[in-house]
């Protein structure tokens, strides 16, 4: 994978607040990359520096081998799809899409052809003559996308692209964006606070925390092998059980000793937490060796899944389990039921702060 964009040691402060703190990133050509994080983690500031709307205090931004740190926003071969879409209200859909090409001096038949092509790509050709105020949220988003893509940038930045859409449309657009990215071959950099959005679309995700990269990985690795408690907690749901690292496993007071895939990474005697995804918790009818007695204290039906809260003697926090509704056991599950649970060591992780 050849590097398209390189963010090298970039920092940016607003007054006393360090919004972006010495971030290094490399984004490949034709990659779908996501910057993920809670609000205030610095992802939007980083995006705005790449777009050219903010100057980094330190560090360099390099695009296709060229240092563009000092290049003005209107001279960068990078386009941004704004969270608010920022469509020009006094121009038609076609006028909005044509704007960027007109800035390159394009006129006449070629301009018309390129605009028509871009509108085709987002399936908006019939609405070319409408004004933005006459469009639905989803249509506006497509116009914003066409307007940014029509310039054939080397890199397309998308700021919370699906934030303003309802759930159904969001799921549809996730697939659509992925398709557009593959069809155009343009590298996409998406900023989002929605982990599901990042997981479904991105090739790689950088999870930011307080201006730093907490973990940079492919979606599956980020979900299955989070490197810290913060990452494990932010991506999906996670059960945490505190204990102490021993040679045999993590010793959890009152429950026993549990194995984990990454036990060797931790020094014996340190305090750490065992992390188990709810869907990795197995429910059992009877006691087997290693199973823990539990009591169903809460139950929520989600359609395809059931969420269970399992109280375990001596623990304040219930263990959360997620079982498919199709599971034969699930028809008998109800609140107040006593059962047993366990989890496989190959899906358990030991995490420290």
């Amino acid at each position, binding site marked *: 994978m050849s590097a398209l964009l390189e963010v090298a040691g970039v920092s940016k402060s607003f007054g006393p607040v360090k919004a972006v703190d010495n971030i290094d990133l490399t984004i490949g050509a034709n990659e779908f990359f996501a910057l993920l994080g809670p609000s205030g983690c610095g992802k939007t500031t980083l995006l705005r520096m790449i*777009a*050219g*709307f903010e100057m980094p205090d330190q560090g360099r931004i390099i695009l296709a081998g060229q240092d563009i740190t000092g290049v*003005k*926003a*209107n*001279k960068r071969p990078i*386009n*941004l799809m*704004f969270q*608010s879409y*920022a*469509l*020009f*209200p*006094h121009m038609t859909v076609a006028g909005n899409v044509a*704007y*960027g090409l007109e*800035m*390159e001096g394009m006129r006449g038949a070629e301009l018309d052809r390129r605009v028509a092509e871009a509108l085709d790509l987002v399936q908006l050709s019939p609405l070319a003559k409408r*004004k*933005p*105020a*006459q469009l639905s949220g989803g249509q506006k988003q497509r116009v914003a996308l066409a*307007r*940014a893509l029509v*310039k054939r940038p080397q890199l397309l930045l998308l700021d919370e692209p699906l934030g303003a859409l309802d759930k159904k449309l969001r799921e549809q657009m996730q697939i659509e964006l992925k398709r557009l990215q593959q069809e155009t071959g343009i590298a996409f950099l998406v900023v989002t606070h929605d982990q599901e959005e990042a997981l479904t679309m991105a090739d790689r995700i950088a999870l930011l925390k307080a201006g730093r990269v907490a973990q940079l990985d492919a979606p599956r690795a980020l979900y299955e092998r989070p490197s810290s408690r913060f990452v494990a907690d932010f991506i999906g749901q996670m059960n945490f059980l505190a204990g102490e690292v021993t040679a045999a496993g993590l010793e959890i007071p009152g429950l026993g000793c549990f194995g984990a895939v990454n036990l060797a990474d931790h020094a014996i005697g340190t305090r750490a937490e065992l992390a188990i995804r709810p869907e990795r918790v197995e429910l059992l009818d009877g006691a087997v060796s290693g199973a823990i007695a539990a009591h169903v204290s809460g139950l929520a039906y989600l359609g395809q899944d059931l969420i269970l809260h399992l109280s375990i003697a001596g623990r304040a926090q219930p263990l959360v389990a997620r079982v498919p509704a199709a599971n034969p056991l699930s028809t008998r599950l109800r609140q107040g039921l006593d059962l047993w649970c366990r989890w496989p060591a190959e899906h358990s992780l030991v995490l420290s702060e």
Partner: protein
Amino acid sequence: MVLSRRIVLTGPGIAWIVALLVIPCLLILGNSFFERGVYGGIDYIFTLENYARAADPLYAAVFWNSAQVAGITTLISLLVGYPAAYCIAQMNPRRQLACLILVMLPLWSNYLIRTYAWMVMLNNEGLINRVLIGAGLIDAPLPLLYNDFAIIIGLTYGYMPFMILALFSSISKLGPDLREASTDLGASAFTTFRRVTLPLTLPGIAAGSVFVFVLSVGNFVTPDLLGGGKRTMLGNLIYDQFLTARDWPFGSAIAAIVVFIMMALLTAQAIIVNRRSREDGEAGQ
């Protein structure tokens, strides 16, 4: 229930407007179609003579003069007011409030007093001439007072706040997103202004310009005091017809024409604003 509440709430306002604006305007309009009485007053004999007289070159020149002076005043107010309003719109809310108060501050003192203050500044022994002579830049005082220049200075100064406020309310609705989007798409700062900011603030430009033009055209104090009465503007003409020539019907006819022109301008401006706000829909967000 709803209807009665509406009447209670809007009634006083409507009554006020009807009693003090609509009825007087209709009276003026009515008077303009009658003949002048021999000793002043009105003879109730229908005639169109007053309107025919208003078209006389002598009076048509007054219309043209007034439009010129008001037009130049409007243009200067726009050129000076736009950058100021634009700057204020980019400030943080606290400085914004302070600046808007400063803009409105002159309106809290009497217009006549402010006009006299300009006479003190502009006359041959005034502040400006004395500073220029003192600095050795000129030998004899410049004729700053009692001419069109003085009238335009006075009107521009007096009505600038209306221009700035109208422009500010339009410019401040425009978030930074649209400008940034334009920049992102490759536009220079000037192109962004020409193709995005300016067209989208057209309602503010229209509102501010109509305010300043309408107020300037009808003003008679400034031409009298700063213009030294040499330049007759519409306000002066109407004033003279009522109080000096005692020709109420003719004064009424001119007043009716002025009201009609102003209403046409205000309607045009309302249409621009309306069409824009409908088009823009959610642009203000």
